[in-house]
């Protein structure tokens, strides 16, 4: 404690004010914007009520930035933009400039350094990713690698406006689903109950809170080999992995049985319909580094089908709502199985209680 007293006390300043770092055109026109235009993919033009305009160039990066890359992005910002940037919720970097003639040289500089301009309007936005094997304590897969592998294949969809509306893709490395909702979500799905290392449980885990974490009450205290431990009712277990974070000896990850699943139709926006959650469409997909080709193939198939069949402005959920799920499975050539029928609390509201059937 005596040693701790030498430490400097923190300044509890909390969240910094963004205004101080904002481009002067944005500061001058704060709250006074009139409309925007989309001059080309990856570029936005916002016009204020007094006629002033600002151009934004949206740039995809590797997200896990080394200091060299970050400084390179800063150099471009100083030389070709006006020294002000922001990041979108999907980790794209945005440069802002106050004159149209600055846009083309900026894009050239960005692309010359290997970054990618796009991700606006009806494109496939940058895939939101989580921590993965790189720095998470409970991951079933790598996130940065999955995203790199998929973006290599979806780069043209990032750079162009080929989609009916914007497409947000997310990845998550466990069923906690830090990646959140997406038009397409690629999530880890465990398929076997945890393997318990009974020698470690009593030392590492607070047993009552582990029991309390289980959504289906499948975990109970037990004596194993004379030691206090936990046991899982494997018939009840839904393989969610919720017990693993509070109790690492209940290992849920497995080289073979940790699989990928794909969900579609999560939409955060209130536009047209109310916000929607994503729905399971495919599971049992191998966790196959370094390029995960099986998962990518399904994502591409769904994207192609949506691109060809949906109407302008339909997000993926709007499209499925119009054509119906039977047609979705038919067009995407994905199997419809008993696992698609929900049996969790409130599941009856997801069943068809009508004669509304398309033939």
């Amino acid at each position, binding site marked *: 404690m005596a040693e701790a007293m030498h*430490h400097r006390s923190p300044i509890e*300043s909390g*969240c910094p004010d963004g205004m101080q770092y904002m481009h002067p055109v944005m500061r001058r026109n704060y709250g006074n914007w009139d409309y925007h235009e989309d001059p080309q993919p990856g570029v936005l033009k916002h016009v204020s009520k007094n006629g002033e305009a600002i151009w934004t160039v949206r740039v995809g990066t590797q997200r896990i930035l080394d200091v060299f890359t970050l400084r390179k992005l800063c150099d471009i910002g100083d030389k070709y933009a006006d020294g002000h940037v922001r990041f979108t919720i999907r980790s794209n970097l945005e440069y802002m400039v106050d004159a149209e003639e600055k846009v083309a040289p900026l894009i050239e500089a960005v692309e010359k350094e290997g970054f990618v301009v796009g991700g606006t309007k009806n494109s496939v936005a940058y895939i939101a990713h989580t921590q993965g094997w790189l720095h998470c304590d409970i991951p079933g897969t790598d996130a940065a690698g999955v995203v790199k592998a998929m973006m290599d294949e979806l780069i043209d969809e990032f750079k162009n406006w080929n989609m009916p509306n914007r497409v947000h893709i997310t990845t998550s490395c466990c069923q906690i689903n830090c990646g959140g909702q997406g038009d397409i979500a690629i999530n880890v799905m465990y398929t076997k109950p945890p393997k318990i290392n009974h020698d470690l449980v009593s030392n590492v885990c607070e047993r009552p809170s582990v029991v309390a974490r289980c959504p289906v009450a499948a975990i109970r205290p037990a004596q194993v080999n004379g030691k206090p431990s936990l046991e899982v009712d494997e018939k009840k277990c839904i393989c969610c992995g919720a017990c693993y974070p509070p109790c690492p000896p209940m290992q849920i990850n497995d080289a073979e049985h940790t699989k990928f699943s794909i969900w579609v139709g999560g939409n955060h926006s209130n536009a047209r319909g109310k916000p929607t959650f994503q729905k399971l469409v495919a599971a049992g997909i191998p966790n196959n580094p370094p390029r995960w080709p099986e998962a990518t193939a399904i994502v591409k198939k769904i994207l192609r089908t949506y691109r060809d069949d949906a109407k302008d402005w339909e997000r993926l959920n709007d499209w499925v709502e119009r054509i119906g799920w039977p047609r979705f499975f038919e067009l995407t050539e994905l199997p419809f199985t008993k696992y698609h029928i929900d049996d969790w609390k409130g599941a009856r509201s997801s069943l068809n209680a009508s004669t509304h059937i398309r033939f």
Partner: protein
Amino acid sequence: MSKEQEETAKKASGTPEKAVPLSREGEREHFETPMLDDLETGPWPSFVTGIKRLRDKHPDDRIQGVANSLLGQLEHSYETRKGYWKGGTVSVFGYGSGIIPRFSEVGAQFEESREFHTLRVQPPAGNFYSTDVLRNLADSWEKWGSGLITFHGQTGNIMFIGASTENTQHFFDEINDFGFDLGGAGPCVRTGQSCVGAGRCEQSNCQEMKIHRTLLNNFVDDVHRPALPYKFKFKVSGCANDCMNSIERSDFSIIGTWRDDIKVNQEEIQSYVKEKGRQYIIDNVITRCPTQALSLKDDDTLEIDNRNCVRCMHCLNVMPKALSPGDDKGVTILLGGKRTLKIGDLMGTVIVPFMKLDTEEDYERITELAEEIIDFWAENGLEHERCGEMVERIGLVNFLEGIGVDVDPNMVSDPRVSSYVRTDGWDDEARKWFEKQRQNKLDQKAATA
């Protein structure tokens, strides 16, 4: 993690011996990374190339070593399809939160990234930066950390990935001096998020950054010292497009809206029709309105039934030059959004249909509401129970009574279907409703007078 646990974990993880680099005198051998090398090919920028740059080009030998070791462990994960980080307890002086401890289970093989903690740092509201401040952050981070940064993690923090236990304090002290503070981790108020909003967007209906900072900075103590049932997130979106995913992903969602009429520039409507064609406007605007509140008239002007407009944003998204939000702006507040664990996914629920946010008193009102909610949840929530899950368990009405908010038909999609309810307090409740209606009318009169 104790030595004993580390040993056992190591045994369990089955590290192959080949992972140990051959060391020549005084020179660091690079771990072989054939699988990661594959991710250096292809057109999208590669994080592997970035980490290798730190390993090969960085002047600091410490960073070179960390990067090499990290690549070795990551390749080992790719080969065995398993993760090898464990949590623990690491904190800076005075705080109990903000650092995600990472100790390697295979630290004996990958020595130099054995301690690889992540610091969660709160970004400026709206994620605005100058290149100068980014350079300052990079300078401090390469002095003390691995040189790897992410803008931003899924909760919205700047993620400084990879520092030793000792260096977390040094790094924090340095960036804290130039205005940055740690975010939340564990059962506490978490780092918030707000959209670009009034800074650059014509659809903004509120001061997103101000709401974000007013709320977050009112709860700094609850951010830094985890003492709540579980996490609690604030997210602010300036309109119902909800770019911050606040309804799905935050406990306290604030969304900008307006009460008066949509502003229409009829000449711009006519020029959209001229440019796109009548059929396009009918198919993509008129018939997509969720409440059939739009009608395209014979002279190609737009008629809007504003009483039945639900402010969904679709027509404004399609025709931003012709349509704008009204002037009587404010926010809607929804409570309790979250992802699956434990009871299943929940969207936020409307608890305040409309609140003005103009004056300092208005901001005090929203802060007090948040305090009331967090206090009630801290008292009544179970361990590891999100606020929305508590509402699910006790019912919305009990929750509203607990925080002193009156019921409102905007809080439901439909009234009750189930007849399993005791209604012997009906007359009192009906009287309350009419009294409130009368009061609202008087207030409105006073406001317009």
